């Protein structure tokens, strides 16, 4: 057993993947000597060399575009985008190039590119450092989108993403980078939850709260608080946004009859909209109340001194839970 942080989990996952496959590369801004602004790639350049851990020029389109070329040449690049708000210069390369190339080549090329993005708010940062833009990419056919919420998942999901032959956007909840958990080092990838499977994070009977990334912890805290009031919340960590794991979610909703979906991203056209629509279609006769969504507002991410008001917190989750239970 080792106690690791979420950032360390990703670091160890990258290291494992690099040890196992010489074609795995890490590339991005400041990922080398500095080890990334969050130190996620700490020590990798020292151990694997500048050839495999590459400090790139400051250009996100360049990072993803050249990663595509490297992948065409047989490499498995893992790109780091420094912050969520800086992925947009690479948008064309991701959405028009990376996502579509397999289909255009009728399956004759694979682009096993991973794009790691620290996501979400809550760290008191200035603008463009707290965005939740997963819906853009989940909306794009050809990309897989996953979000880890804890150190153990971080370790395994990083390796699973790298092993995937499709492009994967791997979101890392930046305000949870320093959260700790125990990792059983005897476990292998085969023991891990498959990449595209949701996970029951806490069992409950009265209502399902589905969340992913940074707000899984918030949902767990809400469940603990609700317990004291005699309400039993089942928490589902969705983990994978594209593809979505509806069977796991539906099994829970069929049991509890109620669903609240939580994310930091704006509610309007967010993942919650898709989850709610699908849950309604699939579990209509089990539902006792409309599916509720808790998330960001339809505004730009606010200045940090009001971000606590913007971010879904325990109270807002419990408010939605109460409204659902009272329906």
């Amino acid at each position, binding site marked *: 057993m080792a106690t690791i942080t979420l950032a360390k989990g990703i670091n160890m996952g990258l290291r494992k993947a690099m040890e196992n496959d010489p074609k795995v590369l890490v590339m991005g*801004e*400041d990922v*080398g*000597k*500095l*080890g990334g*602004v969050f130190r996620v790639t700490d020590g990798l350049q020292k151990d694997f060399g500048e050839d495999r851990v590459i*400090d*790139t*020029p*400051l*250009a996100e*389109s*360049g990072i993803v575009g050249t990663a595509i070329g490297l992948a065409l040449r047989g490499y498995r690049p893992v790109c780091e985008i420094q912050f969520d*708000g*800086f992925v*947009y*210069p690479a948008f064309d390369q991701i959405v028009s190039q990376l996502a579509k190339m397999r289909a255009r080549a009728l399956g004759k090329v694979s682009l096993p590119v991973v794009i790691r993005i620290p996501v979400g708010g809550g760290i*008191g*940062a*200035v*603008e*463009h450092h707290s965005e939740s833009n997963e819906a853009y990419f989940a909306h794009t056919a050809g990309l897989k989108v996953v979000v880890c919420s804890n150190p153990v998942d971080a370790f395994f999901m990083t390796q699973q993403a790298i092993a995937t032959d499709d492009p994967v956007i791997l979101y890392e909840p930046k305000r949870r980078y320093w959260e700790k958990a125990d990792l059983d080092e005897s476990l292998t990838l085969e023991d891990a939850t498959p990449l595209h499977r949701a996970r029951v994070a806490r069992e409950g009977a009265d209502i399902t709260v589905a969340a992913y990334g940074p707000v899984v912890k918030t949902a767990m805290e809400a469940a603990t608080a609700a317990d004291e009031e005699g309400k039993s919340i089942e928490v589902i960590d969705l983990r994978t946004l594209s593809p979505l794991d509806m069977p796991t979610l539906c099994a829970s909703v069929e049991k509890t009859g109620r669903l609240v979906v939580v994310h930091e991203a704006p*509610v*309007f056209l967010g993942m919650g909209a898709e989850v709610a629509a699908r849950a309604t279609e699939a579990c209509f006769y089990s539902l006792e109340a409309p599916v509720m969504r808790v998330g960001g*507002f*339809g*505004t*730009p991410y*606010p*200045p*940090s*001194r*009001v*971000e606590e*008001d*913007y971010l879904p917190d325990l*109270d*807002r989750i419990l*408010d939605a839970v109460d409204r659902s239970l009272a329906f």
Partner: protein
Amino acid sequence: MTDSAVAAAASPQAAHPRLARPVSDQPELVQLLTPEGERVEHPDYAIDLSDDELRGLYRDLVLVRRVDAEATALQRQGELGIWASLLGQEAAQVGSGRAMRADDYAFPTYREHGVAWCRGVDPLNLLGLFRGVNHGGWDPNEKNFHLYTIVIGAQTLHATGYAMGVQKDGAESAVIAYFGDGATSQGDVNEAFIFASVFNAPVVFFCQNNQWAISEPIEKQTRIPLYRRAMGFGFPGIRVDGNDVLACLAVTRAALQNAREGSGPTLIEAYTYRMGAHTTSDDPTRYRLSDELESWKLKDPVERMKAYLSRNGIATQAYFDEVERESAELAAYVRKGCLEMPDPEPLSIFEHVYADRHPLLEEEREQFAAYLETFERAEGTR
């Protein structure tokens, strides 16, 4: 011969002479004041300033450095979330900032506190973003100083477009775009160069090459001196000693004047050094040696101006003392203003998103207001 040398000799490329690599020798830079504070002449950049103007530049340098130091201290004390220090870059910013006329327009990055000062922007305006009470919030048109742009390079296109507008209006103003050495790698910056060149836009590209983009040294961005990039885009580029306020003033003045007169864009590379961390969140000891820092300390922009002024009897100790006193006052003003800055109201999140009404957003706002009221009520009954 080793096996690999044999293989190389047999490879098709070996039959061709190797193309010469671009040399990155240290090119000439325009300098009017040596690091020792000695006035030197440059054939193309004569400058004739009154003693008052010279003293004024010194005062700017000192005040700007003082505001910066105060902001760094405020961050350390938890009053700002983060601060991007301009330490070491005062001359580049004051020189270029003072080269502007009132009708010129500046598009800054997040580090242009010295330019803001020259434009007459209240330093407290800058603090709002770093404290986290707003995203900038000042009226860019009040002082012709645009909002800080954090997304690297984006503002260079805005500056170019603004300059295209100036040109269409037949106005005689110029625009200046600030950016860093790292930014020169961005597509946006290269596209700005192309648009400016093709449309002959009245814009000056002012690149502060402070040698670092967070942890990445300039070699990670370029194989040739940056100012030489301009040639390939079809406009002149020039390197200036970025720690020499007189040279920065002279070169930027000339470039702005060229722009106003219809001669199109210029790239100015102000060769300088980021003396501090990238921001207060950064730890430069992880990636750079202190020798480098020490060697740049000898080129300090403020000290060299002070040496020049005192050696030539342009300013006396009494003047330096007076500036010192003024800078302490300014720091106190900045500190007080920062501490008094109120946190935004929660419902302010919903303001200014659209010019027109947006029913869904209004609905969200109302729901959130009602939700907040439930807490107030709960507190009232306690």
